[in-house]
């Protein structure tokens, strides 16, 4: 097995430091370039010759190689498709607008896709909007009570009904608790609805009437 070549001053023509420690420092400052293959041929050959004879520099070089490999293992990540979709949609919209003679504008992310709510439903009267919460609550009450009426399990099922579901006492008890909770919730909802309706009536009916009578 051949012996490694002896140190023969490979940097004589490269203005390298003459001191041993400084030489190693000088070499190690070029290790990254060596790993990247960015050194000129002469320099690369000289550095490799030094590495063959210097264990600390060889170890540093091996570490540098290892780090470069590890760094290159870091993946290039895939851009989420929604990003390009949003960008392309906006570009298409702007191109369409520009073709129609409209000024092109860049919107902030995420790109809005619709007009503001006020402009979206101009046909809805303002009075409807004021009563909408109360109407929604009323609809919810009707739906909940209707659902409870139809689905509430009866404790004495009729024998003549072929679709009767047999329930255990535990299931019946659980259903009763759920119904009580639903009724309690409805009571709270109803109270809030009542307050809303009362406020509306005071504001829109009683107060104007009172003012007119005065």
């Amino acid at each position, binding site marked *: 097995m051949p012996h490694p070549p002896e140190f023969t001053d490979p940097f004589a023509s490269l203005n390298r430091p003459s001191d041993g420690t400084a030489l190693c420092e000088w070499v190690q400052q070029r290790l990254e370039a060596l790993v990247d293959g960015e050194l000129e041929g002469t320099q690369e050959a000289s550095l490799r010759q030094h590495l063959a004879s210097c264990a600390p520099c060889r170890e540093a070089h091996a570490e540098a190689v290892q780090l470069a490999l590890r760094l290159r293992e870091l993946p290039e*990540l*895939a851009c989420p498709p929604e990003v390009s979709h949003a*960008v392309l949609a906006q570009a298409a919209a*702007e191109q369409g607008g520009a073709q129609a003679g409209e000024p092109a504008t860049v919107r902030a992310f995420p790109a809005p896709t619709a007009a503001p709510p006020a402009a979206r439903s101009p046909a809805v009267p303002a009075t409807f909007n004021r009563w909408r919460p109360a109407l929604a609550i009323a609809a919810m009450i009707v739906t909940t009570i209707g659902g409870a009426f139809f689905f509430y399990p009866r404790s004495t099922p009729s024998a003549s009904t072929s679709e009767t579901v047999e329930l255990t006492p535990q299931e019946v008890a659980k259903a009763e608790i759920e119904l009580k909770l639903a009724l309690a919730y409805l009571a709270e909802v109803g109270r809030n609805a009542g307050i809303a309706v009362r406020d509306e009536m005071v504001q829109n009916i009683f107060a104007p009437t009172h003012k007119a009578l005065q």
Partner: protein
Amino acid sequence: MLDRFSELIDEHQDRVYSFAYYLLGSKEEAEDVAQEVLLRLWKNIESVKFEAAGGWLSRVTRNACFDRLRQRRTQNRLFATSLDTPGLDPATQATEDNPESRANSWDVQRHLRQALAEIAEPHRSIVILREIQGLKYIEIAELLEIPINTVKTYLHRARRTLRTQLREVHCYAPST
């Protein structure tokens, strides 16, 4: 025009997103930056040459990320809090068949990303551009508008810092 833009997006979106992710360490912010940068490309689609779009995008992405990092500094927020995203799941990223080496590889990658997030600019940008994006020294120098020797110096310092940090955590120095 839109076809050309779509083609550019297909070619460069992953690179833009990755660069932003590794610079910012946040998936959400990287998405925001990617969208912002690609929209800026659309605004400048007539002036950016097709073959120069990659460099242009890297420059704009870096500037956009720097703006965000400056905002973070002013808000005195901590950097890199969510580096372990589902997109970087070890099971999908590792290549080794051996579960033990796969776990070890994932562990090294995690520490590497953490160490990368902690090194200062412009060292981090240079490491990402060189190692993850695969740019040459001269390309990095042109992109960052700094001399090529400065790129080499910064890269050397950054790697030395990374080596030191990883050595402390993993003792991965290979046998010689």
